[in-house]
């Protein structure tokens, strides 16, 4: 048994360059498969990690249509509603658009109760509460721009220009950390009151983009949803009320068939690598023909020759797959940083690694099967005659 492993290894190192190149292509492919699948799992993470007790209320016309602030009091009266909080998308940018990140005007009194996953040291929450023009930033933002508590951040209000035609200014009161993958670590939250009072001077009363609701434990969610929608049927803006999972799913469906295309790309990668491995295995099989003849005449069985070739393929792919997974794991930090703005919370799931293992073993089996079968059915005389 040991001897045959030695034989496998000798055969693989007979042409070291070829084996290295094949292993390298598998490494590349496995890395690509892990990254592509992670893009999709990242997009979907929001749906899977949604809190089943939270609902979102938005205008039935569209996400960019504001609802009147007074809706909050109406929603609070609906039985089964435990807590509500409001959000408004600010849509500004820091210095130039390439530094895009999300900013929301929020109500600090209800926001933190609604989202316990948004974790802030108590003294920073206190600092935020007491300073009307302050903000909280996600730890990724703090790192990226090197912002610290006490800094002042100018934000150009592209969607909500400052009435005095200048940048809005926010003092950093604290840095939050998110404990779950679907609560983004690169958002800025600031005081609703600051937002409202600044805009009220020059234009119409600002409205609310989204209300979040938390229902009572054990509340009948479909009934609460129906009650909320019913309550505003005849008001100036009709509303849509959906579960948090559904709200997130809408963003996923907006990606359209991009996830499908990513799947196609993944299959193309697998196909290309499969062909490369078959090619390598056929080449090495051809070189081993004479030796297989010798081994068979020495009394090695057809089955052991079959195994010899198959194990070579599996070792080659296993090596490539293992290194590829290692490479994907080692680079996931920098990749996440690069893709952060588009795919917040980029993190390779254990299932993705599992998938990569299955794919490489599968490629090894398929690539090894053809040469292994011909090694099995090779007749000694033919093989010993030397030429293929």
């Amino acid at each position, binding site marked *: 048994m040991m001897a045959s492993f030695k034989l496998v290894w000798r055969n693989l190192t007979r042409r070291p360059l070829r084996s290295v190149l094949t292993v390298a292509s598998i490494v590349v492919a496995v890395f690509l498969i892990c990254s592509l699948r992670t893009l999709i799992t990242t997009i979907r993470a929001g749906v899977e990690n949604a809190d089943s007790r939270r609902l979102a209320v938005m*205008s039935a016309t569209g996400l960019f249509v504001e609802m009147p602030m007074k809706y909050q009091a109406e929603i609070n009266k609906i039985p089964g509603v435990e807590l509500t909080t409001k959000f408004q998308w600010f849509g500004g940018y820091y210095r130039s658009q*390439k530094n895009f990140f999300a900013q929301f005007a929020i109500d600090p009194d209800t926001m933190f109760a609604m989202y316990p996953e948004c974790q802030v040291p108590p003294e920073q929450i206190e600092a935020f509460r007491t300073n009307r023009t302050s903000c909280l930033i996600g730890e990724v933002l703090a790192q990226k721009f090197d912002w610290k508590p006490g800094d002042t951040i100018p934000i150009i209000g592209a969607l909500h220009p400052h009435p005095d035609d200048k940048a809005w200014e926010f003092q950093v009161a604290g840095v939050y950390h998110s404990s779950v993958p679907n609560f983004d670590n690169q958002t800025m939250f600031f005081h609703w009151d600051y937002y409202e009072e600044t805009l009220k001077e020059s234009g119409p009363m600002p409205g609310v983009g989204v209300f979040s609701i938390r229902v009572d434990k054990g509340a009948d969610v479909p009934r609460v949803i129906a009650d909320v929608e019913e309550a505003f049927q005849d008001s100036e803006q009709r509303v849509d009320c959906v579960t948090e999972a559904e709200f997130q799913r809408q963003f996923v469906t907006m*990606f359209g068939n991009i996830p499908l295309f990513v799947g196609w790309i993944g299959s193309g990668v697998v196909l290309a690598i499969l062909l490369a491995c078959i090619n390598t295995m056929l080449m090495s099989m051809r070189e081993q023909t004479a030796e297989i003849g010798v081994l068979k005449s020495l009394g090695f069985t057809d089955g052991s020759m079959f195994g010899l070739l198959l194990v070579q393929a599996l070792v080659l792919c296993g090596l490539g797959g293992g290194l590829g997974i290692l490479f994907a794991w080692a680079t996931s930090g920098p990749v996440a940083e690069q893709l952060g703005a588009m795919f917040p919370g980029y993190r390779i799931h254990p299932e993705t690694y599992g998938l990569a293992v299955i794919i490489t073993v599968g490629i090894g089996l398929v690539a090894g099967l053809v040469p292994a079968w011909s090694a099995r059915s090779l007749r000694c005389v033919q093989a010993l005659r030397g030429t293929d």
Partner: protein
Amino acid sequence: MFVPLSYNLRSLFVRKSATLLTVLGIGATVAIVSGVVALIMGFRTMFTAGGRDDVAVFLRPGANSEGDSQFSRDRGLKLIKSVPEIAEGPQGPLASMEAYLAVLLSPERGGLTNVPLRGVQTPTFEIRKGELAIIEGENFRPGSDELIVGQRLVGHIQGCHLGGVITLNKTPFRVVGVFEHEGQFGGEIWGDLDRLLAAMGRYGPNRVIAQLAPGTEIGAPDPTQVMFSDDPPQPKEGTMAARLLTDTEVPAKVYSETQFLASQTVMLTGLLGFLAVALGLIMGLAAIFTATNTMLSALAARTHEIGILLAMGFRPIPIFLSFMFEALVLGLIGGLAGSVMALPFNGVRAGTMNFQTFTEMAFSFRVTPLVLGIAISFAMMLGLLGGAWPAWRAARLKPTIALRQG
């Protein structure tokens, strides 16, 4: 003296299985990369087709997209009146205020999606005379609760067909026509500006567009640079862009429509371009490895023959070139195979989110001759890179040693 090319072609044929596998491997790589490039092409055509240099887009200073921009109705009117560069049409200035809003509608496939809705005024149709055509039904009547829908939405979004009803907030609008536009408007819903503003409870348009008198210089800086630079370039002194930006009554940011559309596509084009380059590099690397393997084994099998060639008096450089030619042919066939694999994608419909406005955009893959050209050159480059090392080794063989082998 050069080695006859038929020698290489035959040897590719003799080693059928290795050649076929390599060709398919290169083909798969090339097909994927050209698929992404075809997506970029389709997306750009969809967005920038119909972009015109003689049409100016006026936005609020500081706004970067139509969604961000906002004018009150009075200021919009004042702006149109105060710009002498706007061309005159049969019924006054060729300028129109437009409202733009993403509305939540149901796609036929289920769920909800944001569809762009545009409120326009009559001069819009005068400006768009050559590019937009009603292909079914008729145009909406000004001041009525009627809509026309872009052809790309038909069969895709519920209610978007002749005779359909789309309820905006609480007002039902009737679809009276379907229009065709090669560019982005072909995926939008259009209606009367004032009726849409009223229905949605909005107080003003988002942007103003105008056809300019011939020869007008707008003088706006490259919007992509404005968006992505910490120190944005300023409009050219003395042009209308510079004047309007600092106007005391109605300040506005002006771009030509071509510039504006380029600024709206830059993010997704950049993302897809990054994807194409990353995939091309990573998968290309794997394809080069395969090609090198194939050529190395071709070399190993033919060491003896090369010895004969050298003994006959062929110089190392022709031998090197001969192997490079073989690798090039391998790449070329791979490129052709990849193109054949990519062709079925032509016309396949894609839909994704426009990250600047959060609306869904529908467009198609476009496998153009340019895409195929890129694919084939890329494949030939892969072949050459993969063949370089084996060809170098072949050229360096010593005739005596080579002859002793095989």
